[in-house]
């Protein structure tokens, strides 16, 4: 969208209180955003947020305990527009 992906804060956030490590989201995501850490306390992490497709929340739909949250869409759209303006003026 005319803005480097790294500048757009869009990825799932895991609420470890709710998450029961069913791994449905990791099985679902074809972009490899999540990574499993069998031997660590947090068994699932968002390892590659940059792989997450902006505005996609599909993994959230697979989460029964609703442990995945995303940034606000309207704010993200506004940010992208602002970054585009800056890159145009900034040259």
């Amino acid at each position, binding site marked *: 969208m005319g803005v480097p992906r790294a500048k757009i804060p869009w990825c799932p956030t895991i609420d470890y209180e709710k998450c029961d490590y069913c791994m449905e989201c990791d099985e*679902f995501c*074809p972009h490899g955003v999540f990574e499993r850490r069998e031997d660590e306390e947090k068994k699932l992490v968002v390892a590659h947020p940059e792989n997450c497709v902006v*505005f996609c929340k*599909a993994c959230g*739909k697979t989460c029964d305990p*609703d442990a995945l949250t995303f940034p606000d869409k309207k704010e993200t*759209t506004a940010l992208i527009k602002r970054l585009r303006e800056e890159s145009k003026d900034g040259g």
Partner: protein
Amino acid sequence: MADSRSAKEPVEIVVLPCSGLDKEAGSASREIALLLSEHGVPVVCPVLYERSPKRYEKELGSGRLVVIDGCKTGCASKLAADRGLKIAKRLTVTEAAKKLGVKAGKDPHLGEALRNQVPALVEQLLAIETPETSAPANAQVSFSDPVTYREFGVDKFVFRVPDSGYFFNENDCWARVEGTRARVGVSDYVQQSASDMIFFEPPKISAEVSIFDEVGSLETTKTALDIICPVSGKVVAVNQEVVEAPELINEDPYERGWAVEIELTDFEDDRELLMDPPTYFDYLKQKAEKEHKELYGG
């Protein structure tokens, strides 16, 4: 063409709830129906209706049918579908309760938390405004010009992208723009990776959407996904053909398989965030080849 009656006119409804003995959400569905009957709304008992459909012929003939499913299994909807009834509005208690911050449990007894939500859910059903049909079509817009395509292959899979008239977001959803209207759907890539479509849950007619909002959701034999709207505006039509036969999206994702029609409000602005066909073609080719590597390795 739909008669667009004024929004606030009281509309007679008849309600078909699920019998609600399996889970807590089912009991809530029963409570909602009982409360509605106190508002003078005729209630169809699903088991009696199953045994003798004639019993409710009069009510179902006149009122607009509201179906209450306790959970996603959707027994009441299935009963209505089996009888060929047209559903004006559908409430799934587990989903609606989740939106109100309450989780319906496994124990079929109705708990306090969910019981307190029953009045709010009843209000949602009574607040049925304009009928769920399309607004009058805009005469000069037809979306009937022939579409030509470019394609590329990854192994034995062929992916097509229209040559012109379509705009895409990174979520592989398209908007076909004509005049002040746009039709929205999902790309060939989505229908191939998500596999066979079995359900399309349309958005409400006249809903206001901004770019990247969800406009309806799809369920396939493999997964469930939302349609991420590439344009801002107002939902003016829903493709009933796809509501009845979602596999149309697999057969013709860019033309007959359109999902929603939008009256545009901000297209000049939205357009900057979208890809035109050649840009999307390259974007998709890279994505399909990379993802295919991950899916099939090597």
